[in-house]
């Protein structure tokens, strides 16, 4: 995984430069529809031009050809094309690798292999290249929508329901996803990143996901871990090997290894982490986490360094 996040990179979040089978189908359909619509428009304009000239054909078959047969053929062709494209995008592959993503206000809970090892992570989704992956999409609170424009179409995450979407990334890279259904005050700040890796890199990533968090090995990191344990962070956040079980907020076991902080919104570094902890409500209004502005300066620095060290 590269260190640099996709923040501010235009080509990481566009369906015009596809990186997955769903986005490729959508792009082909868009181009086909646009070309067909342009041709029909030009044909209609030509007919209007003919009508303005006074040499009107005296045959009624023009009306039938232009007013009935041509639209029927064109619409049926476009409907068949779009139906097949949409059907192929919406197809759910039951044998594919499953990744469960649950939308929360305003972050994403990610569980790899939910029926087996159930490896938990958050806000960054790693998928193997050229391999079908079925996303099992849920919501914990309100309606969210899961959309990675470069890779596939979007699908809503409805509370109480499970929606599924099979995608297949066609090239390696780092792509941005965004919540596409208004879900509250910080809806625009609810993004994530999808990292497409080779199959063997993906396997070694998931193998490492069950490990416990890196140990605090300096005085400052130990102080940071103690602040994390004593200040109540563990009520919402889990760090494997340090504090287990809490699922109200994102799992922080490998928080420092993610490229972005706050659900894909800020670069992951000590500075942003410290600012985030001290004033979440300013950076992400309406988030469930309170601003920890009662920490002393050294405690704030220590916990920021500690979280940054978790890789």
């Amino acid at each position, binding site marked *: 995984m590269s260190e640099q996040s996709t923040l501010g990179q235009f080509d990481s979040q566009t369906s015009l430069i596809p990186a997955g089978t769903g986005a490729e189908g959508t792009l082909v359909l868009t181009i086909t529809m646009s070309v067909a619509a342009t041709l029909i428009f030009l044909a209609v304009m030509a007919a209007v031009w003919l009508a303005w000239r006074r040499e009107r054909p005296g045959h009624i078959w023009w009306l039938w050809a232009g007013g009935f047969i041509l639209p029927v053929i064109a619409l049926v062709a476009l409907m068949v094309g779009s139906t097949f494209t949409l059907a192929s995008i919406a197809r759910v592959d039951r044998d594919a690798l499953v990744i469960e993503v649950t939308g929360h206000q305003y972050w994403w809970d990610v569980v790899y292999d939910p029926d087996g090892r159930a490896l938990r992570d958050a806000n960054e989704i790693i998928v193997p290249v050229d391999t079908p992956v079925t996303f099992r999409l849920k919501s914990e609170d309100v309606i969210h929508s899961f959309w990675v424009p470069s890779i596939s179409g979007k699908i809503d995450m409805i509370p109480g329901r499970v929606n599924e979407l099979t995608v297949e990334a066609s090239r390696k890279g780092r792509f941005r996803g965004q919540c596409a259904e208004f879900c509250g005050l910080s809806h625009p700040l609810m993004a994530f990143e999808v990292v497409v890796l080779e199959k063997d890199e993906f396997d070694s990533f998931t193998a490492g996901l069950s490990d416990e968090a890196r140990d605090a090995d300096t005085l400052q990191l130990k102080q940071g871990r103690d602040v994390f344990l004593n200040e109540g962070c563990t009520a919402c956040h889990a760090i494997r090997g340090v504090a287990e079980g809490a699922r109200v907020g994102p799992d922080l076991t490998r928080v420092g290894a993610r490229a972005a902080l706050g659900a894909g919104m800020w670069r992951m570094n000590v*500075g942003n982490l*410290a*600012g*985030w902890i*001290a004033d979440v409500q300013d*950076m992400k209004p309406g988030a469930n986490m309170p601003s920890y502005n009662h*920490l002393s300066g050294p405690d704030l*620095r220590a916990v920021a360094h500690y979280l940054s060290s978790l890789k």
Partner: protein
Amino acid sequence: MSPARIIRIALTSVLTAAVLGVVTLWALAAPAFDPVGAALAWSKQRGEALVGWYASDPVAATPQWQSMHMRVAGGDPARGRQLINEYGCGACHVVPGVPGARGTVGPSLTSLADRAYIAGVLTNAPGDLTRWLINPPYFSQDTAMPDLGVTEADAKDMVAYLYTLGGFE
């Protein structure tokens, strides 16, 4: 009119005419020793020098010692602005010109160049601000500002940008 007054006017006139005559004769004779011409040439040269000095806008040429001492040798403000974004300074500070930098955890860096002290412990000078950015807790052990692993080159560029905010220019 008394005879004494007539005599005084006559004598004065004769003397003045005599002096003028001598000076005229000297000037017409163009002697090597010419104090009048030298005096005229000197005053002309000095006058032109004075006019030229005013014309050269001497106020602008005066060194601005206050802003010059805040100049950062080798600092690139444009790169510094980019780095301020990448290091995440905006999570805690308002930094004019940096996108999204509107944090309220620490002080706003608007008009930073006008401040007298940094964090209340260092003077506001390029060297001190550079060292502060590299390792804040070294200078103020209770500060909430973490050491971000900033390199010296990066710190200089960021200081160069911060000193474009406000100041004497």
